[in-house]
């Protein structure tokens, strides 16, 4: 039998924890037949910093910086989801201006995250230049954040009961300036990537996530919407003031890496739209409700979810009425995405794994916490 002669031994390759394309410290044990992946065994926990345990010993105000570290790429969203959970457990009235500022910051952060994702996807597929282009625009967003809260990455800005401080007066013109140019810049990235035949060859029909797999593995956010699932927490279960904005939720039906990339490109444009509307309607007023330093929510439990940049981010918060949370369970969307990787990648090649990993925008702190 020819097959018997040609049968080769399975090669086990350890990819990570330090590997350029695992976006941190994921470790994947690959069982390879030549270049073809038979099986992947993800090993996680290399960044398990026990945030869930740490916050049990912190007051609610002290929890917010921990949330920044839980999801540093979209730290605003992480702050927001925790603040939202704590606010649902008490009856704090959030000032109108604070809500608008949250939306502005959240959407800017979504844009920053998507820019990072698009750039890193290109980098992982071997094109270094788009990565540096997207980082160029990302720096402009980080400038806006820095202007507002003094940090580039871990903001500690969205607090329980509002936001930490008001935006400086020069924020609005700067932000408008940025919004005016971002569309043209996104066009630039598209010119480099979208129609590029090699980019198409690497991304089209690679890493299919059919609808069944979306349900099986809890794929959320842009990755689910690229598989034809028309669901966005911002629209379908509006939190904060998202029901006041006019924006489209792009949906693609290709289920592949290419559509996930397109999804992110479109979401950057839509986020710019939301920020523009929010800046237009930004009311005057206080930015923080009166919340004491030893804020005590009511006893009870709540699950708050928001649409983060890479999917649904949830905080399951249990309070026992004391100034410290009783139990916090953080749900990052990458958790489910990485769980689905072995299923998606079976029978594909190593190079595809890299593309899929990048297109799902997996980052490790969300998983390991």
């Amino acid at each position, binding site marked *: 039998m020819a097959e018997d002669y040609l049968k080769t031994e399975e090669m086990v390759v350890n990819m990570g924890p330090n590997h350029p394309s695992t976006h941190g410290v994921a470790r994947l044990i690959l069982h390879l037949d030549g270049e073809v992946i038979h099986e992947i065994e993800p090993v996680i926990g290399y960044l398990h910093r026990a945030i869930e345990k740490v916050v049990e010993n912190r007051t609610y105000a002290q929890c917010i910086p921990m949330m920044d570290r839980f999801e540093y790429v979209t730290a605003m969203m992480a702050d927001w989801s925790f603040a939202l959970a704590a606010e649902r457990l008490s009856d704090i009235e959030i000032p109108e201006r604070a809500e608008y500022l949250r939306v502005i910051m959240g959407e800017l952060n979504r844009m920053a995250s998507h820019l990072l994702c698009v750039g890193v996807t290109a980098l*992982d*597929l*071997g*094109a270094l230049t788009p990565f540096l282009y997207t980082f160029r625009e990302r720096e402009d967003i980080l400038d806006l954040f820095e202007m507002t809260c003094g940090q580039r990455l871990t903001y500690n800005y969205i607090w329980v009961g509002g936001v930490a401080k008001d935006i400086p007066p020069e924020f609005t013109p700067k932000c408008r300036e940025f919004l005016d140019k971002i569309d043209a810049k996104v066009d630039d990235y598209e010119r480099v990537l979208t129609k590029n035949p*090699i980019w198409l*060859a690497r991304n089209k029909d690679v890493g299919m996530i059919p609808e069944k797999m979306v349900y099986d593995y809890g794929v959320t956010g842009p990755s689910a919407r690229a598989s034809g699932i028309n669901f966005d927490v911002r629209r379908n279960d509006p939190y904060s003031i998202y029901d006041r904005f006019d924006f489209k939720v792009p949906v693609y039906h290709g289920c592949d890496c290419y559509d996930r990339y397109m999804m992110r490109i479109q979401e950057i444009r839509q986020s710019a739209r939301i920020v523009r509307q929010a800046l237009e309607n930004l009311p005057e007023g206080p930015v923080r409700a009166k919340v004491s330093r030893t804020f005590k929510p009511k006893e009870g439990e709540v699950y708050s979810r928001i649409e983060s940049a890479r999917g649904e981010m949830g905080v399951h918060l249990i309070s026992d009425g004391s100034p410290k949370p009783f139990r916090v369970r953080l749900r990052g969307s990458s958790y489910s995405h990485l769980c689905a990787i072995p299923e998606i990648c079976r029978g594909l*090649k190593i190079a595809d794994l890299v593309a899929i990993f990048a297109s799902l925008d997996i980052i490790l702190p969300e998983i390991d916490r």
Partner: protein
Amino acid sequence: MELAPVFAWFYGLLESLGLGDTLNEIISEAILALVVFGFLSLVALFLVWWERKISAHVQQRFGPMMTGWHGVIQTIADAVKLLQKEDITPSLADRGVFFWAPVICFVAAFAAYVVMPFGKDLIVADLNVGILYIIAITTFTVISLLMAGWGSNNKYALLGGMRSAAQVVSYEVPLALSVLGVVMVSGSMSMNEIVKSQAGWAGFHWNIFFQPLGFVIYIIAATAEANRVPFDIPEAEQELVAGFNIEYSGMKFAMFFLAEFVNMFTVSAIAATIFLGGWNGPFLPSWIWFLGKTLAMVFLLMLFRWTYPRLRVDQLMEFAWKILLPLAFVNIIYIGIFAKWLGW
């Protein structure tokens, strides 16, 4: 100013010493080898710097700025640093293979320049099978990459070595076929003859104008030969960490690194010689024409590098065998018809 008379004058000087023909021959060959080697090393160092500068300016950065004027001596600093690095041989590596791989890579990269016409009469040895020799000797690189991959006893390196073997062997075929078109027209495999056949007509006798398809095939295959993006899968940083050279440190890595850039210069020089008229050109000395054309080709390859993503390994093979190879045959038939009937 032509350089050939300088060498002739020097040879005359050597003869006047009266050392006998054999000794004269040996000394002059040795000096020539040294000159070529030194020149190529300088070129490789320059290319590394140039590549970093080009990539930086493509990406709206500055690139090396601190070391020398705009970082010109950056690569020299890199080389000196690499010389000082500890030379690690993994304990489980196959020592002999591990040691010889970079040497073979280095030698193969430099040996191609024996038949390269740098300018008018500026050629080390005008072999009558020059182009065949170059294609043969550059293929040695793949052996060294395989050796590096195997000898390192590292799975990533092995995958990189295997990939490079598959890639180079596949792309060798369209490359040789596209070169064959030129040989058919010029009727000789000697590099000098090929250059001379493109003389005259103020540049319109260059092969690129008669065989644009051949030129395109050559450039694509040559990019793959030099392991450059979009065909750099043997050392795909994001997949195989560093591919075949993952275990190499210090000077051995520097040899791979320099050989890579020398290879890039080689394929560009061949393109300049057989498609762009070699050292032919008005007004300026011939070697400047040669260098200018070659650097223009290098610049093109560098722009590819910083624009395109890389292909997947199976797409790469498909492209070679299903698209490039038939196209190369079409090119040959087309040249055959025209050369026969129109009598170029």
